[in-house]
């Protein structure tokens, strides 16, 4: 081999929460966590009913992976969910760098959070929307749900029509940041 440098194995993984909190774990993953200065054992169990739970400091925590795609995870612990991306030190650096760059001109699509029927579209193409503003009324589960925009910007395109049935994750509207 022409190159002398040895290949470096990833020695740690980082779970980065949706609120940008980083939890670091050493590889290979032992079933123990460094916690307030000491290592605490963590036990994964499955009960006869098919639930998985963690025993942590003598307490049971019911645990479930509710979404998992590539390195994106949503984990439910005692009926509260937490979203993470699992990163290596390198990918985390990349992520932080790209965040800083902040692609201002890019557009964001608002997707249907659940299947349902479009009752009303409250915005028009090229119209302005503010963060938190309702943009679409989607009827599901007998209820009319307001879908709100999570960014401010200009409506680039509206991909649905009134009374149309949509599936979960269908793109409803694209908004250009600004």
């Amino acid at each position, binding site marked *: *081999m*022409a*190159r*002398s*440098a*040895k*290949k*470096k*194995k*990833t020695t740690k993984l980082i779970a980065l929460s949706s609120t940008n909190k980083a939890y670091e774990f050493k590889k290979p993953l032992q079933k123990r966590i460094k916690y307030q200065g000491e290592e605490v054992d963590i036990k994964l169990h499955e009960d006869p009913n098919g639930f998985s739970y963690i025993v942590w400091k003598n307490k049971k925590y019911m645990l479930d992976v509710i979404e998992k795609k*590539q*390195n*994106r995870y949503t984990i439910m612990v005692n009926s509260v969910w937490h979203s993470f*991306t699992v*990163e*290596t030190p*390198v*990918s985390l*650096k*990349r*992520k932080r*760098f*790209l965040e800083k*760059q902040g*692609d201002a*001109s*890019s*557009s964001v699509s608002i997707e249907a959070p659940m*299947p349902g029927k479009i009752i009303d579209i409250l915005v028009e193409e090229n119209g302005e929307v503010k963060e938190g503003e309702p943009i679409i009324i989607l009827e599901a589960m007998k209820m009319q749900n307001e879908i709100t925009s999570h960014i401010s910007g200009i409506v680039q395109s509206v991909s649905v029509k009134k009374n149309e049935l949509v*599936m979960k994750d269908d793109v409803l509207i694209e908004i250009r940041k600004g």
Partner: protein
Amino acid sequence: MDVKGKNFTRFLERQQAHNDQHDARAKAKQHSKGKLTAWERIDILFDEDTFEEVDAYVTPDKTDTGFGKVQQAYGDGVIIGHGLIRGRLTFAYSQDFTVMGGSLGSVHAAKIMKIQDMALKMGAPMIGLIDSGGARIQEGVASLAGYAGIFHRNVQSSGVIPQISVILGPAAGGAVYSPAITDFVFMTDQTSYMFVTGPNVVKEVLNEDVSLNDLGGAGVHSKKSGVAHLVYPDEENTLMGVRQLLAYLPSNNMENSPEMELSSDETSDVEEKLRDIVPDDPNKPYDVKEVIRLNVDKRSFYEIAENYAQNIVIGFGRLDGKVIGIVANQPKVLAGTLDINSSNKGARFIRFCDAFNIPLLILEDVPGFLPGIDQEHNGIIRHGAKMLYAFADSTVPRITVILRKSYGGAYCVMNSKNLGGDFNFAWPTAEIAVMGPEGAVAILYRKELAASDDQAAMKKELAAKYRIEIANPYVADERGFIDEVIDPAETRLKLIRAFEALETKQIDNPARKHGNIPL
């Protein structure tokens, strides 16, 4: 180093210079863009300490035009070589953006061609890690000739060895056509781009403002154009994804795909959940991926082009450890109808599987082709024919399971018995007919309906009758168009046995240069 009086000074000097070239500065430059270096990528892609570089010390061609400067770097901006991926021989090139923007000069191109030739000779997969500004302007036509040489080899290797392109930076102009020919294109979100003409040219010619990402980013190519088959959020996951995909592929067209042992928590052969997946209401959608996951080995479904033409689902999976290719209509999207994009997506995948001896499983729930002026004018006839052609032309074992709807022309296309399907199964929920009940009774009883006082009620009644008498799997079963109506819960078991029975399938096709697929 001095061994038995021989002088290795020159050897050591060169080695030092080569190492210096990959110094911290070059690395930092690449990292500062959120990217990895060419070497780091190789390290992630290959098994530890298995990569052997070839042609590390070539230097670029000296141009005599005096136009622009050519950086005299060892390797000329590309690393080529071979190594092991999960223990299997694989060839690769990795472009180095830090050397003249990874631009393709004649020597750079010659290296790529050299490794392509080797991969083809050895019958091993060829992987290109692409991060290049395009043709090297200083070298002019020599550089363009280089591209053509690469394309030519891509085509020669097509269907002989698996070729994978991984776009990790820009791929612009002519450079995009090598990936376009290869079997699978990976992209990394936010830092990779592909386009024939860049934003500047678009601005100049059309006066349209568009960002790199909006013009040819991973999102565009995975959702809209269908150029990229797999997208990952960062380079490490992208390269790990390549490793994952390779586990499903044979090294060449004479071998079989590698097998894998079953997990300890393997899917049971009888899966009762399958009985409940297809809703009683024929207009109600469900997720066909759930059907796939419940039938293949645990965690073995590897989906391709997930975000493009989502009305068809394609991907690899394992059945009892053996690799199969899966083509499934997705009732969740556009009711699972076939349209131009889904036909293209399906057809290319079928061709790949056939070329590499990967048996095909077709899960069918298709109400027909997507109607519309737009579809007709853009050539759904031509494109739909590709899928039909691809199925009929393939010689690998092909098994169809009709889950629910199988209507009209789409019935024929989706690997029907007479298109050469080896085993065609149907679930009891299957509806097989020339068209859906509502449409059929509207034609068959036009006059009667027009005369009726309560059209809706009569139509409903007739539709129900049609379902019982025509649109069910039993008619087809009794006439041999279906081999067996099966219990959904036992699908996996049936499939394992059927594919086993088909292992020695061989077909005599007439001798010809090649057929004429309606491209």
